[in-house]
C-alpha cells in the first residue's frame, strides 16, 4: 500500500500527504517522508504564524483608532494618549494604548465593497465573491505555504465561523472552535485509549478488502484523514485547546469574554505551532446607538487584544507572529438620526503588530471630516501583500482553481511603504 502510494507522489501533492495510516499511527510507526522542496522546508521551519482579530460587522474608525474629537462627524467620542507621543486613539482603548509602540495603525484603508457578506469574503480571501470559484481564505493560503504537514494540530483554527479553504480543500480548512472556553467537540474518545487504538487497528485491517476491490484511492485518502484525526485526538498537543490551565491572573488580563478567551487560545495555539488563528468579535454593525455600543464592544476587545500583544512579547513570539486587527469596512462620517453610523468602505482603519512590523507609527490618514483618504491609501491587496511579506510568503504564488485557472494568493497591490522596520 505504501509503495504504490509513493509511486504516485510525483503526480500529486495531495496524494503525497496521504501516507499516514491509522494503523501506522497506532503502532507508533509514524514517520514523515522528507519529500518537500527545500525552500518550502526552510519556510516551514521558521514557524511563522498569524493571528487575525476580526471585527465582524465593520467597526467605526471614529470610535476605534481614528477619533476626530471636537468635529461634527467625530461625535462625542474622546481621544486618549497612547504610549507613543502624538498617536491618539479613541477613549475605551486604554489597554491597547499601552502597547501602541508595538502597533502600526493604518488609517487609510479603502475599498468599494459595502455589503457585509461580500466584504467579509473579500477581506478574508483578497477576492470579491464569485459563483464560479471559491477562493481560499488568506489563512488557508498561508497554511498551505507555511504549515508543517506532520504537525498534530490543524494548521488553521478559527474561533467562530469563517471563510473556508475554498478549492485548497480539506488540509487547509479552518478547524472551527465555537466556544474557546471549552474543548472542541468530539475530540475526546468515548472509550478508553487502548480500546480506541484497538479499534483503529481493526478499522485499518477491515479497509483492505475494499481497497483491493477498487477502493484503493478512497481508502488511502480516508486513512490519511483518520491518521491526522486520530493523531489530534491522541496528541498531548490537544491540550493547547484548553485555556483553563493558564494562570488565573493571565486569564483575567485577557478578560472573561468570548473574545478574550479566544485571544488567549490563539496565543496557546500559535505557541503550539498552529499557522493561522482567527478570533472573532461580533456586533460591530452599529447602525444605531453607535456610541454606547462601541464603548461596550471596546470593553470586550481592548483587554484581549492588548493582553495578546503583551503576552506574545513576553514569550518572545512577537517577531514571528503577525497580529492583524480589522473588520470588513468602516462607518459613515455622518451620524445618522438613530445616533448610528452606516456602512462606509471608502475609508476605514485597522492595525498590524509583530511579524517584523514597525510599531508605534501611523500609516496614512483620513481627511479632517473623515469622508475620504487624505494620504497613503491602502487597498485590500496592499494589505494582503504586506501580510505575505511579514510571513515570508510570495504573494504572487499561484495555485490552480478547480477549473484550471491559476490564481495568485494576492492579485495586484504592493507592500505598504514604511510598514516594516
Amino acid at each position: 500500500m505504501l509503495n504504490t502510494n509513493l509511486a504516485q507522489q510525483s503526480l500529486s501533492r495531495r496524494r503525497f500527504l496521504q501516507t499516514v495510516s491509522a494503523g501506522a499511527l497506532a503502532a507508533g510507526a509514524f514517520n514523515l517522508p522528507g519529500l518537500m522542496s527545500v525552500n518550502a522546508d526552510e519556510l516551514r521551519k521558521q514557524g511563522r504564524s498569524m493571528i487575525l482579530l476580526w471585527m465582524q460587522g465593520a467597526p467605526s474608525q471614529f470610535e476605534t483608532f481614528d477619533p476626530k474629537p471636537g468635529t461634527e462627524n467625530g461625535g462625542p467620542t474622546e481621544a486618549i494618549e497612547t504610549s507613543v507621543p502624538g498617536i491618539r486613539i479613541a477613549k475605551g482603548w486604554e489597554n491597547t494604548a499601552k502597547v501602541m509602540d508595538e502597533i502600526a495603525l493604518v488609517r487609510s484603508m479603502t475599498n468599494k465593497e459595502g455589503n457585509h457578506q461580500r466584504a467579509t469574503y473579500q477581506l478574508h480571501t483578497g477576492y470579491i465573491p464569485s459563483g464560479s470559484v471559491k477562493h481560499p481564505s488568506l489563512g488557508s493560503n498561508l497554511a498551505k505555504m507555511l504549515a508543517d504537514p506532520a504537525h498534530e494540530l490543524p494548521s488553521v483554527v478559527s474561533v467562530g465561523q469563517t471563510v473556508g479553504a475554498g478549492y485548497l480543500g480539506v488540509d487547509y480548512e479552518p478547524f472551527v472552535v465555537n466556544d474557546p472556553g471549552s474543548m472542541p467537540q468530539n475530540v475526546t474518545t468515548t472509550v478508553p485509549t487502548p480500546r480506541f487504538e484497538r479499534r483503529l487497528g481493526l478499522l485499518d485491517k477491515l479497509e483492505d478488502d475494499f481497497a483491493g476491490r477498487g477502493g484503493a484511492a478512497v481508502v488511502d485518502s480516508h486513512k490519511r484523514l483518520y491518521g491526522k484525526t486520530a493523531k489530534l485526538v491522541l496528541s498531548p498537543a490537544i491540550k493547547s485547546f484548553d485555556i483553563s490551565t493558564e494562570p488565573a491572573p493571565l486569564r483575567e488580563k485577557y478578560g472573561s469574554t468570548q473574545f478574550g478567551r479566544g485571544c488567549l487560545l490563539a496565543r496557546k495555539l500559535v505557541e503550539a505551532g498552529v499557522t493561522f488563528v482567527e478570533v472573532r468579535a461580533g456586533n460591530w454593525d452599529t447602525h444605531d446607538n453607535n456610541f454606547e455600543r462601541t464603548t461596550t464592544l471596546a470593553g470586550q476587545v481592548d483587554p484581549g487584544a492588548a493582553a495578546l500583544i503583551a503576552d506574545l512579547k513576553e514569550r518572545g513570539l512577537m517577531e514571528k507572529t503577525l497580529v492583524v486587527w480589522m473588520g470588513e469596512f468602516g462607518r459613515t462620517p455622518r451620524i445618522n438620526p438613530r445616533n448610528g453610523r452606516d456602512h462606509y468602505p471608502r475609508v476605514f482603519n485597522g492595525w498590524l503588530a509583530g511579524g517584523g512590523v514597525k510599531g508605534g507609527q501611523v500609516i496614512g490618514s483620513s481627511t479632517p471630516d473623515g469622508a475620504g483618504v487624505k494620504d497613503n491609501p491602502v487597498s485590500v491587496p496592499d494589505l494582503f501583500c504586506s501580510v505575505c511579506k511579514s510571513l515570508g510568503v510570495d504573494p504572487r504564488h499561484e495555485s490552480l482553481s478547480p477549473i484550471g485557472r491559476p490564481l495568485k494568493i494576492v492579485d495586484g497591490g504592493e507592500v505598504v511603504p514604511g510598514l516594516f522596520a
Partner: protein
Amino acid sequence: MAATSSCSVRFSELSGAKRLSTGAVLLVVPLTAVLVAGALSGRNEADAAPPEQPAPSKRFARPNAPRPFDRDSRRGDSARKSDSSANTGKGAPTQRAVARHVSPSDSAGTAAAIDVVIREELAESKSSVAPVAADEDFLRRVTFDLTGTSPSPRDVTLFGLDSDPAKRAKLVDQLLDSDEFSRNWARYWRDVVFSRATEMRAQFATQTFEDWMHGEFQKKAPWDAIATSMLTAKGGVREEGSTGLIFAHGAEPAEVAAEVSRIFLGIQIQCANCHDHPTDAWKREQFHQLAAFFPRLRLQPKMTTPRTFEVVSLDSTPFGGRGGGNPLGALRENPELAIRRLDQNRDGKLSKSEAEDGPLGRLFDRLLGLGDTNKDGMLSAEELKKIEPPMMAGRGSREYHMPDLNNPSAPGKRIDPEFFVTHEKPGADLSDADRRAAVARYITSPDNPWFARAFVNRIWSEMLGEGFYIPVDDMGPEREPRYGKALDLLADGFVSNRYDVRWVYRTIASTEAYQRQIRPTEATENPTPFVAAVPTRLRSDQLYSAITKVLGIDDLGGGGMRRPGGGMGRGPRTPRDNFAQLFGFDPSTPHDEVVGSVPQALFLMNSPLLTNLMRAGGRTTLSGILTKYSSDRDALNELYLMVLAREPSEKELKICTDYIAEVNNRNEAFEDLLWSLLNSSEFLTKR
C-alpha cells in the same frame, strides 16, 4: 404523436428565431431540413464543428503555465483546442444543434447505442473493460443514486434471490417512481444552487427551494419547465421555492447571469466578466449581454416577522417616469426632475420634510451625509449631481451597464440583452417579465445544445463518478468531451423525450457503463474513463439517510452536533441541516476533489450521540442483531448487510472472528466492529 407535438414546439421556437439577426436565420435552414426529413442521420460530419488540429497541451492562455497535478492528465481528452478563434466558439454549438432525433428515443435503445460508442472507443485504447457489478453492488449503487439511501438487508437478500433477468430495469423503474427519488434530487439541486450563494441570507430559503423542487420532480415536470420557473420566478422567497436561484445571488444581474450559465448551460461565461475569456471564445460583452436580461430584478426586504424578501420586477421608477430603477438611480439620471417633483416650497432645494414623504424617505439622511457640501441641511440639484455613484457601477438602473474597467465609478456602457449561444435578441426597453421569459425561452430551446448537455453530463457524472466533461459546470465551448458521441446520444434523446428527467436516469442506469464493477485503478497517468465504476463519496444527505437507517432511528437529534444558530430569521435547524453543516459539499465539485474533513472524522469517531446508538445493550439495532443471531458468523453477516449492504468476504469474516476471540467479550467486540464499519471508507462511499 409525440413527434408531432415536439415539432410544433420547435416551430414556435423557430418563428421566434426568424425575427433575429441573419446569423440566426442561417441556423434555421439546416434545422428545418432535418425536421422535414425526420431523419436520425442529421448527425454527420458536416454538422459537427469544423475540425481543428488538437493541441491538448495548451489549456491556459499563457506559455509554460503550471499544470494541475493529477487532474490535467486525466483531462487530456477534454483539453481545449489551440486555436480559440471566436468563430468556432460561436459556430460550434449552433451547428451542432441540428443533430438530434426527431422521434423520442427509448431508454434501452439509447443505452445500448451509448455502450456501443464507448466500447468502440475503448477497443482503440486497449483498456480492458471491468465486468458487470454483482447484484449487491448494483443494488446499493442505484439505490443511493436514485433514492439517496442504502438498501436494507432485506432488500439485498430479496434482490439477490430474484431470478427475473429484467430485475435491474424493474428496480430502476420502481425507484424512479418513489417519493425518495424526488426528495433525493431536490436536495441535490438545493446544494447545487445554494453552495455558491453570494447572498448568505439565502440560507433560510433552502428548505422552501427543496420542497418546491421535490414537488416539481413528483409531478414529473420536464427540465425546461423547471428551468423556466427558476428563471422567471417572482414572489416571496419563503413561499416561492422557484425564487431560490435568484435569491441566492441577491438578484444581482451579473451574479444571476453567471449562475444561470453555469448551472443550466455548464458554461462559465462569467470569466468574461472583466476581460475576454482567457481560454474560451466568449467576449466580455457577451457575458454582460446575458446579464442584461436581469437588470430589473430586485430583492425587496419585507419587514415582517420573520423577516423575508420578495423577488420583484422594477420596471418603473418611484417617480413614475422611466428615469431609473430606484430613487438613487432616478436622482442620478435627472436630479432636476426629482427636485421639481418634490420641492414643495420651490426654493430649488430638497429639505428633509420635503423628501421624507416621497420615495427618497429613508435614503435622505444618507444622501445628505454624502452630498450636503454647504451643510445647509438641504440638497440642491448641484449637490445631488456631485454625490458619488453607488458602490457598484450600474446598480440601481433599469438598464444594464457594463462597467468601465478603467473608471469603475463611471456608469459604464449600456448593454441590451442578447443570448450568446444563439445570438437571439428580445429587443430593447423590455419589461423584466419579458426579458426573463425571453431568456428562459432561448436557454431551454432545442436550438441551444448546451441546455440538454449540461443536464445529462451532470447526471451522468453524478451516477458514474466522472463526466464526459469534468467539471460538470465548465464544459465549453473550446473543450472536447470524452466520448462526445455518447454524450450527444444522451443529450439528443433527452431533447426528443421533451426533457423528461426520469428518461435520463433510466437510460444511464441501463447502460453497461453504469453497471460495471469498481476495480483497482490502472497504474497509468491517464486512466481511461468509463472502463470501470468509480467509487465516489456519498453526499451529506445520502450519508445521513444511511446512518439513520443503520442505527434504526428517524433523526440524529441531540448533542454532538452543536452549531451556533445563524443570522436573521433562520428557521430552526433540523438534525439533517446540522449534519450537512459538517458533511455537506458543493455537488458541482469534481468527485475526486471531495474528501473528508477532520471534524467529520471526529464526529464519526467520537460523537457521544453515535456511541450511544452503537451500543450492544439497550434498544439498538446492534443489540437486536446480537439477540437474534447467537452465531457470530450469522451476526457478522447481518451486520455487514446492514452497514455495507453486502455479505462479508471470507477474509473479513476471519479478521472479525479473530478480533472477537481476541477481545473475548462479545458485546464489546461487536461494538468495535460496528464502529469500524461505520468509520470505514466503504461506508462513506458509493461503490
